[in-house]
């Protein structure tokens, strides 16, 4: 019969050890169930430990006077009969209390994380409430680049919304510039420029554009003769206008015909969100960098209203006086590509999370074939870049065609 070792149990509600007083058996001697094995003294009492099995004492694991930890081997016995199932049922003598284990029982253990836990990057000095941090994550705003306007320099919801409005998408044009560039020459004579503020926000937004949006671009040239005539008419009526209001108006009508262009891709749910309102972002080159003020509900405005509001937004952007609501919530963006210089057109980048950006080139005279004759006509390039997840080439072409038609036949 296999030998079995009896371990010192917790004899009294959380005891951790006992001192052996004396053995009442000798090694090699027979022992009956419940016959006294030894006396031990705990912190509470002197108690007699009865044998759990009948058999022959094989070895004693402690000497009188010795301290035995609860759970340590006390005696080894060769049982005369296998105690049916006991070992399987209890697995040891420390059942409850100190040192207890529950063999055969379920365990609650620390688990390794499913993915390696990323070490959080400490943002020393950044003070912002959880919601503000969440908002910053959603809008791609770097909190460390923001000066908080709240108490104790705390970054507020408004601060994040303002910062989120600063970056803009379009135009390959904008020259690298930083709002407060710090130039640090190195050994080779290269200069490293610390990127902060709007430059950093633009960089982040553009990375997001090209890394998350599969986009393609289509180009067209439109005949601006009618548009220029309309401008001249307005000017004579005392309402001088830039071409921009006509672009915005044509865009609003094209979106009405093709609402899918005024949308965004919800990455969390893989759904297309078709926008209920048309808020046109207007890319404006400013001394701080590219800003995109938003002309709200552009589809509800007539040309005069568009002209008036766009003028206010562009001036405000350049002067840095716009409110947060003027800088947020765009659903589609227009940008001016080649208003000056020899540039004809360019490839604008979609402004996330929007679906479409429209670039207008400068209006100037170009040779165009009209009714079989090559004529010098006022004309301009137009380019659209769209999110291919939402829009295919066919729809983009339809949209661009509508846009051109509207521009060639202004009200």
């Amino acid at each position, binding site marked *: 019969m296999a030998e079995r070792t*009896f*371990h010192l*149990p*917790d*004899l*009294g*509600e959380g005891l951790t050890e006992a001192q052996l007083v004396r053995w009442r058996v000798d090694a090699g001697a027979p022992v009956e169930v*419940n016959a006294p094995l030894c006396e031990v003294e705990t912190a*509470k*009492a*002197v*108690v*007699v*430990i*009865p*044998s*759990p099995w009948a058999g022959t004492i094989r070895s004693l694991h402690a000497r009188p006077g010795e301290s035995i930890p609860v759970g340590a081997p006390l005696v080894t016995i060769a049982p005369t009969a296998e*105690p*049916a*199932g*006991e070992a399987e*049922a*209890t697995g*040891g*003598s*420390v*059942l*409850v*209390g100190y040192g207890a284990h*529950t063999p*055969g*029982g*379920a*365990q*609650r*253990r620390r688990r390794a994380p499913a993915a390696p836990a990323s070490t959080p990057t400490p943002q020393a000095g950044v003070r912002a409430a959880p919601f503000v941090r969440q908002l910053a994550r959603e809008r791609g705003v770097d909190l460390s680049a923001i000066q908080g306007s709240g108490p104790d320099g705390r970054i507020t919801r408004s601060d994040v919304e303002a910062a989120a409005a600063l970056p803009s998408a379009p135009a390959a044009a904008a020259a690298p510039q930083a709002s407060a560039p710090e130039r640090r020459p190195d050994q080779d004579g290269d200069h490293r420029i610390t990127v902060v503020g709007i430059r950093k926000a633009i960089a982040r937004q553009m990375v997001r554009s090209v890394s998350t949006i599969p986009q393609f671009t289509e180009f067209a040239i439109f005949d601006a003769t009618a548009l220029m005539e309309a401008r001249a008419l307005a000017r004579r009526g005392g309402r001088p206008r830039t071409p921009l209001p006509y672009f915005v108006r044509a865009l609003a009508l094209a979106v009405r015909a093709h609402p899918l262009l005024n949308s965004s891709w919800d990455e969390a749910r893989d759904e297309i969100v078709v926008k209920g309102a048309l808020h046109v972002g207007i890319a404006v080159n400013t001394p701080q960098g590219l800003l995109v003020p938003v002309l709200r509900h552009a589809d509800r405005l007539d040309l005069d209203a568009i002209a008036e509001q766009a003028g206010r937004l562009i001036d405000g952007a350049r002067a840095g006086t716009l409110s947060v609501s003027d800088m947020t919530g765009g659903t589609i963006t227009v940008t001016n590509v080649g208003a000056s210089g020899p540039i004809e057109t360019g490839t604008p980048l979609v402004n996330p999370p929007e679906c479409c950006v429209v670039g207008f080139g400068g209006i100037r005279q170009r040779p165009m074939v009209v009714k079989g004759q090559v004529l010098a006509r006022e004309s301009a390039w137009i380019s659209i870049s769209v999110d291919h997840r939402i829009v295919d080439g066919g729809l983009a072409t339809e949209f661009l065609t509508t846009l051109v038609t509207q521009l060639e036949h202004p009200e």
Partner: protein
Amino acid sequence: MPQTGTANHGLTREQLVDLYRKMVVIRRADQEALNLQRQGELGLWGQFLGQEATQVGAIAALQDSDWVVPSYREFGMAMCRGIDPGTMLGYFRGLTHGPWDPRRYRFLPFAISVATQVPHAVGFAMGCRLEGSQDVVLCVFGDGATSEGDWHEAMNFAGVFRAPVIFLCQNNQWAISVPLRQQTAGSIAERAQGYGFPGVRIDGNDVLAVVGAVRTAADRARRGDGPSLIESVTYRMGAHTSADDPTRYRPPAELAPWEARDPIARYAGWLRAQRIVDEAQLAAIAMEADAAAQAMRATLTHLPIPPPGASLFGRVYHDPPASFLKEREEFEASLEPPP
């Protein structure tokens, strides 16, 4: 030697022998449970050595339809009510707070906090009376419990509402280390007068005296005459529990006179003298008790560890809130299955 055996309360010879058998069986179970604790199979054990006559006699005096409201030292009573002792030891093994269905045995769960079960018994008995039922309630507690406020409040309620309840005090002279004289300066039994019902003091080591007193009280309750208090004078021969050491407070000389009044030896002597049993029967009963103790050990050591989710969360609310069920789900999901 005082014996009340002249009055055998109309018990048959078989019933008289059965009282003896039960005392021997529960004592043997008590001893085995202490061994099991010393062998690491139980977290704690509270002996009732010396109190077998009160435990067996009280249950024998009841009808099966009556209810018992115990404290925690009434393991022997629970065995007399038919609850399996090995399963019951699951309580002391740390497997469950309630190893039996109280309705099946008409035996409520153990009450650890002293005297708190006494108002339960009174409320239960008030309910019996409201229903017009013939059921009576036996409420059991120790001498220490009579110092508690709940004990007083419950006795008072029982008197006011004439509740059909029998208050049985197992006065075993000790509340852990505090002797009776430091527990109360007066008589326990006589307090009943103040509550408006009878109180008696009996020899709790005389099983027939216990049967007689409890039966008298039960009859009275069943008649609608209200509660009774029985102070059953006995002695706790062992320690308070397996975690206790009575040599620290109890004079050794105190044990000898109580050993002389041992309830089993006394009753065996009376049964012999009455020629109700012979030696062969006594030996057979001792073997029966040994076998029962081994069966108890086997049952205990084979008790399965119940599934944690159901064990811990299954009996907290009858109508568990959704948030509670969610916590249970999260708990169960956090478990590693046993190897």
